[in-house]
């Protein structure tokens, strides 16, 4: 089981409903239906304890993972899901390579709780290091079984046969049999053992379902339609944790066929169209109690004053306390990182349908099995009665681990006895989904007189413990994570806190290098032993032409490097500062990335460049603004994400270590772009910024070029 990281799947289900229904149904004159259920606070509370982590061992029967049809077509099954990271293609490649068939012969069934083996979820860059080897092992076992079948059939020694192009061949006699002829569609009953799997072939197989995407044929979760389906909307407060005090539905429209459903704190409407559901909800009067809390400018103080548990030491080595006395240069800093939103272009969406056998839900989630459990918990069902399907969705970035939208659709569907679709609006997605945690990080670092790092003390409040450990050789270290309360709902985000921790570490390394009067690259190489970090740093700087030009007012060069989840990254960046507005523009980025043996070079490049692009947003301008738990910029017009105008010239070096196992690549390429940009601003202005985002409204006057 992958190690559990804080903020990975932290959030619990938002709802729990009574299992014994006491629905009071009232028919309006116009056909509208009102369902009233007395609120049960206890039930609501107990629901919050459910849906936590649960593991199941991976099945070791080949038939759980692979099936070969009579026509030779291969169906493969995985609980992982496709959220844009191209896992569907990567896993297809894994199966196709081991089974020796063309990728087009393989259909990958993903994230379907009725058909695929249990999976905890698609997060933590685990698909490549854990699922791909599993699919490969199943492929090898199936191939072996097919060879043995043919050998039996022909009465020859299996060792003399080979598999290629979907057939088993006997090179001696020239005989060959297609897989489909060997199995006749029957399951391959064999146990996966310690199969010798091959390294990926590093082939740029195109995205397997790309054609359906360019034609608009692919059905994303929000595109699913069911016969007789209604559209649902949920009554929302303005703050995610506001408490419903009273509600009055007496003004509900008598026409339009809307059903208003109230169950405890849940109030929603289902109607034949989204606009009719919205109109019905607009007629509902509700009072909410919103707890007071800090604003975005006060939250960092708040973190320090509101611990949520004891500090967790990540590293404690040497004797930090006495090391400061021997230091040649000591640099201290307080850094802050704002809450940011994932903004998956497709918001949360779900279609729920009750059948005599239970509940079926199509929804966009990175944890279909987790959502199944949330649904079972919310409705008091056995998980076997709940079927969750996850059509490839409009991205996630760690933001779609929870099942609240699925529960809402299911609640409305239950009340109306019709399939119901709920698609969150962008505003709902901003206000009620969870965010990347904000954080306060205090750091102190020192060098000895030989220019080497001597001591390092690092305290992260709230942001998270991922990527806390430094790759640098430092004899005295104290690194700790301090869990705190959060006024906003927070959870996983691509790279988790590795982005915050790299931002601070790599910014601070530049400040220390500057204090010691050493070039930032030279300083890093002097203090880094890890060869894989050194390699990406050298590759990125070489590609970039580091040191060829000097930073000056209005133009700066910066770099940063790091490692996380078994992969390694370095960025070099050139920025330009507009003299008038102080706006920072990233002009050029060179990235070197290494994640072991590359599965699909083209898709890897796409991921790396996408992560750099996304990282530019969090680095320069993305920030959630809030008053207490109420978000005040919940719209794309008020929350800026990277656009074409922000696209720098990108050059990317992929280091292919075919001698090493493959690690995941969806997250790590995002972790060093922010400090590289920050260090480029430092180089241009002499000013070391210590807050993310760095320049949402441009640099202040003093830091603009004359």
């Amino acid at each position, binding site marked *: 089981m992958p190690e559990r990281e804080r903020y990975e799947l932290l959030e619990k289900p938002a709802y729990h409903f009574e299992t014994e229904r006491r629905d009071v149904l009232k028919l309006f004159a116009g056909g509208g239906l009102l369902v009233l259920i007395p609120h049960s606070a206890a039930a609501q509370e107990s629901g919050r304890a459910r849906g936590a982590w649960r593991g199941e061992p991976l099945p070791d029967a080949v038939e759980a993972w692979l099936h070969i049809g009579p026509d030779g077509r291969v169906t493969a099954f995985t609980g992982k899901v496709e*959220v*844009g*990271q*191209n896992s569907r293609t990567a896993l297809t490649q894994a199966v196709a390579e081991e089974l020796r068939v063309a990728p087009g012969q393989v259909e990958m069934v993903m994230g379907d709780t009725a058909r695929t083996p249990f999976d905890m979820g698609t997060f933590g860059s685990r698909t490549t290091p854990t699922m791909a080897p599993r699919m490969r092992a199943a492929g090898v076992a199936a191939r072996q079984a097919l060879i043995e079948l043919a050998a039996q059939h022909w009465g020859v020694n299996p060792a003399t046969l080979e598999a290629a192009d979907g057939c088993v061949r006997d090179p001696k006699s020239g005989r060959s049999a297609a897989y489909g002829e060997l199995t006749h569609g029957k399951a391959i009953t064999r146990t996966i053992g310690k199969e010798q799997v091959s390294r990926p072939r590093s082939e740029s197989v*195109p*995205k397997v379902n*790309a*054609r359906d*995407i*360019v*034609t*608009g*044929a*692919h*059905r*994303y979760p*929000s*595109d699913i*339609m069911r016969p007789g389906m209604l*559209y649902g909307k949920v009554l929302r407060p303005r703050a995610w944790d506001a408490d419903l005090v009273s509600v009055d539905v007496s003004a509900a429209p008598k026409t339009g066929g809307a059903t208003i459903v109230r169950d405890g704190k849940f109030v929603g409407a289902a109607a034949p*169209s*989204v*606009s009719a559901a919205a109109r019905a909800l607009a007629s509902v009067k509700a009072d909410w109690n919103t707890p007071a809390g800090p604003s975005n400018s006060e939250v960092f103080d708040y973190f320090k004053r509101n611990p949520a548990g004891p500090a967790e030491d990540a590293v404690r080595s040497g004797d930090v306390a006495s090391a400061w006395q021997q230091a040649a240069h000591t640099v201290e800093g307080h850094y802050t990182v704002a809450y940011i939103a994932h*903004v*998956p*272009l*497709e*918001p949360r969406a779900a279609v729920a349908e009750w059948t005599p056998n239970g509940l079926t839900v199509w929804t966009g989630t990175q944890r279909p099995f987790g959502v199944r459990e949330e649904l079972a918990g919310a409705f008091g069902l056995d998980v076997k009665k709940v079927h969750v399907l996850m059509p*490839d*969705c*409009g*991205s996630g*970035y760690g933001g779609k681990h929870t099942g609240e939208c699925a529960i809402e659709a299911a609640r409305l569907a239950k009340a109306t006895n019709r399939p119901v679709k709920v*698609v969150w*609006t*962008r505003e709902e997605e901003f206000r009620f989904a969870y965010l990347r945690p904000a954080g306060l990080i205090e750091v102190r670092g020192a060098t000895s007189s030989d220019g080497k790092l001597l001591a390092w003390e690092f305290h992260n409040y709230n942001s998270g413990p991922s990527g806390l450990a430094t790759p640098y050789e430092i004899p005295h270290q104290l690194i700790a994570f301090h869990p705190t309360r959060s006024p906003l709902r927070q959870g996983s985000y691509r790279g988790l806190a590795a982005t915050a921790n790299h931002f601070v570490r790599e910014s601070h390394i530049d400040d220390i290098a500057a204090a010691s009067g050493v070039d930032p690259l030279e300083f890093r190489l002097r203090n880094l032993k890890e060869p894989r970090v050194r390699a990406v740093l050298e590759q990125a700087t070489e590609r970039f032409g580091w040191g060829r030009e000097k930073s000056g007012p209005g133009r700066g060069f910066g770099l940063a490097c790091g490692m996380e989840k078994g992969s390694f990254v370095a960025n070099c960046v050139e920025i330009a500062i507009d003299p008038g507005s102080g706006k920072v523009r990233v002009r050029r980025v060179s990235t070197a990335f290494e994640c072991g043996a590359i599965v699909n070079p*083209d*898709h890897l490049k*796409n*991921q790396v*460049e*996408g*992560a*750099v*692009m*996304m990282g530019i947003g969090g680095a320069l301008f993305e920030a959630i603004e809030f008053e207490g738990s109420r978000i005040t910029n919940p*719209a*794309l*017009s008020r929350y800026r*994400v*990277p*656009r*074409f*105008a922000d*696209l720098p010239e*990108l050059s990317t070096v992929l280091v292919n270590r075919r001698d090493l196992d493959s690690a995941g690549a969806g997250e790590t390429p995002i972790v060093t772009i922010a400090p590289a940009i920050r260090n480029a601003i430092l180089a241009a202005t002499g000013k070391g910024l210590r807050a993310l985002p760095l320049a949402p409204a441009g640099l202040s006057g003093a830091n603009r070029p004359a």
Partner: protein
Amino acid sequence: MKLRVNGKDVSAQDPDRSVLEFLRDDLGLTGTKYGCGEGQCGACTVLVDRSPVRSCITPLGAVADREITTIEGLESDGQLHPVQQAFLDAGAMQCGYCTAGMILSCVSLLDRHPHPGEEEARRALNGNVCRCGAYPRILQALRSVSTGGRHA
């Protein structure tokens, strides 16, 4: 009221309803996507008489008697439109949720300017968000059509 969608006559009732809701929910043309509902992301882009329009903020009343083209209407006789083909060739997507809006925005840009410069292309597409950050490949796809080549 009447309008034409992908070459077919259709009729609609409520002039205040958004074109996006009508296309997706009434006509089942779900290739057109919702991303923001305020004209900021371009996921809902359709062509109205060949000009790009944000269908999320366009009421049906505004497109009466006009010709609407959605992503489903670009293919002809099973042949992909050159821009669709270029997106395929360039692998210009990750999750693909922005793709329909991107393709239609590119189609209309090329319609107006068959050979847009880099800056012009960026400006024309700046209202289309790709949160996955596939921007370099989208520009590459556009470039491959505008220069007539098919190289990835």
